[in-house]
Structure formats: structure tokens, C-alpha cells
């Protein structure tokens, strides 16, 4: 989408890396030209933000489907798509196809499959996939159980300067489990795995990443022992980053009561203590990225007995509102919220967006952080309504979304 006329947004509260400031911004040729005290020139398209927040467009790191209506609803202008597609993104031409699949109004950054067929064994053609547009390499929904294969992957990715996105669940412990071991899983009689399956996997992956000098990003870290490992690794200078989705800071395994399959996630929902640990880790910087993990699943995948249902949630529409609850609760400020949602994932991907700064691409949202709405699985923009937040009243909506300086009309 080519920006024809310059765009000037005025009268808003700019969410900048250091905090908020009153003002606006002017965008020319798809990029931010100036930020702060701006005035529109003749021929500019002028948008009045009417005192609402002017923020970077959200960069959603690690989604399973390219679901444009849901992304635009949620203020998401770029998405890093996981290699778990059918067929998987383990071949350069598939990566290239996906890399162009969202343009012009949504940019999709493919994460290449680390191994062929995502089997966790044989390295895929990562170098060629990088050339084809891959912005990182991911182990997919599963863990690479073979430590030798994981080390070789990390070394190879380090050579190519690609981030390795890992799913941290020790497969021997996790097995075919559908829940975290504990009171809830025991009462429901669900196959469960101890929460420590995550810490085990994180410990190994960090050790190997440190050996390889690779950048490891653990897409979801959801338990206190694993967060402690990440915190300690960061303190000694390991290039490790961590992410989480709102489900793990909004919900505990209590949400699986009555076998609600919309709360069947991977990794599974954890204890309340772990939920609190996630919030703390977001607050202290241990967690770098909040993403939707968007994985729309229809009734054929979800209207099943709990353990037989597929894991995953449609999260794109609720990502912003749920993250804003952390701001309202005082866990983080609004500037940090947009570091988690936009700047940090943009850094991981090596793309020039995610901050309201001169020269950055003009991916912008106007957001009303207070606007109340009720999540309704029956009326969602996503291709499926599998949200664990169904019927929950929430606040915060993107009022306008701009990609490359052009307003998207939904």
C-alpha cells in the first residue's frame, strides 16, 4: 500500500519509548518524518487523535495463522508467523509465499522451520529460507528433544544471525499431557505433566544457546522456576529473551474447569502462583515480548473432550486489551506495554518499526485504552472464536490502524 499523501496525526498522547508526550506525528512515503510538535502542511491528510493514544502498530511475535481481520481489529500491523503450517515452512519457496501473503496492509514475517517437517531431527535449509524472507527460525509447537540437534541448530542460526524461537516443554515429561499436574488436573482426570517440564527445557536450551553464542527466544515462559532461569541467564549476559501470551498472565488452570477446551493451550495453563510469577517477570523485564499466539480453531478442533481437543487460542483481538490490564493494574506503564507489544518483537525480527521515531516505518495505531467492550466468541473478526476470555468485559481498542502511513479501512 503506497502512501500517496503525507499523513499528519495531531492531538494525541504519543506513546514513546521513554513515556508519553502530547503531540502528533507526520508520515511521508510510508515512514515517520517527525514526532512531537508537528503541524500539518498543505496536501496532508490530517487525522485528529482527539486526545487518544498514538502508538506503534503491534508486532505480533509468533502466530499460527495469517488472519488479517483479527489482526487489524487488534491493532496488529505485522505478525511473525510460526512454521507450523500445512505444509510446514521448511522449504524456501513456502517461506517466500508466506512472506508476501499479507501485503500490502499486513506484513508477515515468516519464522523458518528449524528442522525438516518440524520433526526435531534433521536441520532444514535455514540459510536459503533466510534469503527467502525468514526473520527467525523456530522449533514450532514442539521441543527439539535431541540436545545434539538443538546445539547444531543454535550454532548454525548464530552463524546466520537468526534468532532461534524455542518451545520449552521437556517432551519426556510432557508426553501426551493436556494439563499441568495439580489439583485441577487431578479432579478433572486429565493427563497432566509437572510444571517443571518447562524449567527443564529452558535450562537445557539456555545452556546450549550460551555454548553456541546464539540468540535464543523462548516464545512462552509460564512458570516461576523457568522465569528464574531466564532472569539468571540474562544477568550473566546470555542473549536470551522470553515471551508470553495474555492467557498465562490472565488465567490459571482454574479456567479449565468444566473441561473448557478454549482454555486448552500449549503450554497448558498453570497454577495461580505461576500466573503471579509471570506478571512479576513482565514487570521486572525478564519477559520481553507479549504476543497473541493467535491460533484460530473451529469446532472440529475444539468441540471435543478436553484432552482430544487441539490446543490454541484465537488471541489477536484480545492481545491489546489484555496487555492494557497490566497497565491498569500498575504492573507496567504504557510505554513498557508497547515495548512488549511492538518494539521488542521488532528488534527480534530486525525490522524498522515498533517505535514512534523519525525514520521508522509508519505503522501506527490510535488507541482508546479505556473503551469498554465484551469479548464474545460468537462475534469475532478471527476465523474462529476460540477465546478463553469469552464473555469477559474488558477495556481498550484500536480506533484506527495505519500501515506504512495509510489508514486501513475495515
Amino acid at each position, binding site marked *: 500500500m503506497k502512501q500517496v499523501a503525507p499523513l499528519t496525526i495531531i492531538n494525541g498522547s504519543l506513546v514513546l519509548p521513554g513515556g508519553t508526550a502530547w503531540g502528533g506525528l507526520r508520515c511521508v512515503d510510508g515512514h515517520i518524518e517527525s514526532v512531537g510538535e508537528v503541524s500539518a502542511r498543505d496536501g496532508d491528510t490530517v487525522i485528529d487523535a482527539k486526545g487518544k493514544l498514538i502508538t506503534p502498530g503491534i508486532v505480533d511475535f509468533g502466530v499460527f495463522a495469517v488472519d488479517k481481520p483479527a489482526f487489524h481489529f487488534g491493532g496488529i500491523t505485522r505478525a511473525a508467523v510460526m512454521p507450523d503450517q500445512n505444509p510446514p515452512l521448511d522449504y524456501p519457496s513456502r517461506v517466500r509465499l508466506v512472506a508476501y501473503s499479507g501485503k500490502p496492509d499486513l506484513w508477515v514475517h515468516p519464522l523458518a522451520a528449524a528442522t525438516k517437517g518440524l520433526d526435531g531431527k534433521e536441520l532444514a535449509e535455514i540459510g536459503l529460507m533466510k534469503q527467502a524472507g525468514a526473520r527467525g527460525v523456530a522449533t514450532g509447537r514442539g521441543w527439539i528433544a535431541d540436545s545434539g540437534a538443538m546445539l547444531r541448530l543454535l550454532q548454525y542460526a548464530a552463524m546466520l544471525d537468526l534468532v532461534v524461537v524455542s518451545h520449552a516443554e521437556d517432551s519426556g515429561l510432557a*508426553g*501426551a499431557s493436556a494439563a499441568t*499436574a*495439580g*489439583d485441577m*488436573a*487431578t*479432579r*478433572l*482426570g*486429565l*493427563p*497432566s505433566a*509437572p510444571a517443571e517440564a518447562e524449567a527443564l527445557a529452558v535450562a537445557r536450551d539456555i545452556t546450549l544457546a550460551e555454548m553456541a553464542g546464539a540468540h535464543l527466544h523462548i516464545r512462552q515462559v509460564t512458570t516461576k522456576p523457568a522465569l528464574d532461569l531466564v532472569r539468571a541467564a540474562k544477568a550473566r549476559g546470555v542473549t536470551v529473551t522470553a515471551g508470553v501470551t495474555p492467557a498465562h498472565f490472565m488465567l490459571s488452570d482454574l479456567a479449565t474447569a*468444566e*473441561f473448557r477446551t478454549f482454555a486448552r493451550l500449549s503450554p497448558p495453563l498453570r497454577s495461580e502462583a505461576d500466573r503471579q510469577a509471570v506478571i512479576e517477570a513482565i514487570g521486572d523485564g525478564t519477559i520481553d515480548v507479549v504476543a497473541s499466539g493467535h491460533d484460530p480453531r473451529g*469446532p*472440529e478442533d475444539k*468441540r*471435543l*473432550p*478436553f*484432552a*482430544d481437543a487441539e490446543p490454541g487460542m484465537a488471541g489477536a483481538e484480545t492481545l491489546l486489551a489484555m496487555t492494557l490490564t497490566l497497565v491498569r493494574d500498575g504492573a507496567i506503564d504504557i510505554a513498557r506495554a508497547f515495548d512488549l507489544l511492538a518494539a521488542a518483537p521488532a528488534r527480534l525480527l530486525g525490522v524498522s518499526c515498533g517505535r514512534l521515531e523519525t525514520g521508522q516505518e509508519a505503522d501506527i495505531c490510535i488507541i482508546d485504552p479505556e473503551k469498554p467492550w465484551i469479548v464474545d466468541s460468537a462475534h469475532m473478526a478471527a476465523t474462529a472464536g476460540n477465546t478463553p476470555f469469552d464473555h469477559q468485559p474488558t477495556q481498550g481498542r484500536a480506533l484506527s490502524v495505519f500501515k506504512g502511513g495509510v489508514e486501513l479501512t475495515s
Partner: protein
Amino acid sequence: MTSTTSPQGSKREYPAGSLAFPHRDLLGIGQLERHEILFLLDEAEQWVDLNRQTTKHSDALAGLTIINAFFENSTRTLLSFEIAGKRLGADVVNMHAAQSSVKKGETLIDTAITLNAMRADAIVIRHGSSGAVDLIASKVDCPVLNAGDGQHEHPTQALLDALALRHALRERGHKADDFTGLTVTICGDILHSRVARSNILCLTALGASVRICAPPALMPAEIEAMGAKPFHDFDAALEGTDVVMMLRLQTERMEGQFIPSAREYHHLFGLSKDRLQRAAPDALVMHPGPMNRGVEIDSEVADMIGRSIITRQVEMGVAIRMAALDVLTRRTRGIDGWTNDGSGVTWA
């Protein structure tokens, strides 16, 4: 108020009509209050009596259709439900998963909708996945009885166990018909056992102290939150216990190795005559079946006259299932006080 005659002849008071049991379905013991459990047990007493007559027949459910939809193999539970339905005069149809369209890829929901369309008056379901019966219940218009879902619940088993235990205790002169002061030890594959879960809930609701014994790999996490005390040492778990309930190893549900061998399991967790000495004198022995003799229980214990109530459990199973089918179909049958007459009952 209505009253039901309890075994001792005392009258127990229950709320009138459907207020005594305000549930459309019987999905688990977890959904029941203590007085609702006692109501079902007391209701079953009349069927225990009937089943001991030469002519074991009632026309209470005449004209109703009951479908036994068993997605998992079963012999005794299916037979027990079938006999229960027939003795109540209902038309009973059995659907076996092996010969059903489930094998042809039909989803569980479609199967449920199909059964519903056939206008069953009650559906009895067994399924290998926890929560499957709840799911079907949410899609059909008639009462649903859980005959075992995965590792979740098997409510009629826990109720029949309670009834068998009540009868055995009564014969020994116990006055109360709940289990206050009684210690029950459940030993075996607790992790994979829906029977254990339903029994923990039922026995503790009726006042018993429940001990749970299993090797660590077969012990579910945080089981103590359900009110049971966990043990790994069978001898310690047996010490002074009034009732020993043995469960079999559910090897069909095990992924990977949980115990080294059956003979080692028997050595550590098998109930032998010697070991039973540790329990209270005359302690009762129970087993939901099927038994693996020589693994979790020795034959001389399983067949011990005056101590083993294993066959009585089977007998009580029919009565409990008759009670459950009778109570759950009262609304359909228009029994006074059980219809939607604005009496304020919300069906849960």
C-alpha cells in the same frame, strides 16, 4: 417434604419432589451434595429388595427408551445398566463403539445429536476421554448418566460401593448409615482411576477418612486437595483401616512404564491375607472389578467369606442404577413434584 425409609426404619427427611435431586444428569459425584448422595442411596434400597424377589420387575419406566452408548469396552457396567433398565420396564438399547459410526470418523457431537434425534429418554455413556460425557450432556435434551469418562468420574460405581458398604456395616450392627468415623484405604492405580476419584468424593462426603495408596508414578498430583491422605507404603496405609478397596492396574491407559513388573507390584502393593492383618480386625475388602488375582489381590482375600464384599458390590450396582434411572426420568414421566411446575428448581 417427602421422606424415605432408611435401613434402620428411621425417616430421613428430604426436600419435596425434585428439590431432593435437582439435577437433570448424573455426571459425577463432584456435582452432588451429601444429602443428594444419601437420597440416591435411600432410593436404591427399594430396588435392592425387589432384586431379591423371584419376580424382579417394575413397570416404572415402561415405554421409555434408554440408550447405553458405550464408547469403551465394558462388560459388567454395561450389563448392570442393561439389567437395571429392563427391570424397570424400559426399552433398553445398547450401542457399542466397536460397531458404531464412531469408527467411521463421526465426531462425538454428531453421535450425540444422532442419539438425541432418536428421542431417547435417558442416555448412559461410557467414554475413554475425561469430560466426554459432560460434552454430550450439553448437546442432548434428555438425562445423561455417566458410566465412566476417562480418568474423571464413575459416579454409579462410587454410589454402589457406598451402598454395598452400608449394607455390610448394617449387618455388623452399625447404626448410622453414613460413614462417619470410618477409615477407608484405596490402593492401586489411582492416577488412571475414575473409580478412585468418585469414591474419594463420595466417601469423604459421607464422613469417611480416605487413605490413598499407590506407587509415586500412579499417584495423581495434589490428591490431598480432594480430601484423601496419600501413602506410598501399603503397610502403613493399611494400619487399622476399616475398609480396603483394591484397584487394578489400568495398563491400557499407561503410556510408558509406571512400575517395573506385576510381580514386584504384587510384592509391594498386593493385598495378601498376611497384609490384611494390619487392617482393623474384620476389615472389609472391596474391589470394583475386574480383578487381577495374584497382582493387586490374592484369591484367598478376594474370596474371604465375611470379609470380601466384592460380589455384593456387583449386586448393589443394579439397584443403584435402577435408582438413578428412576430418579432422573421422573421429570419425563410427569411424577408429581418432579415436573417443571415453577417450583423453583433449576436443572443443573
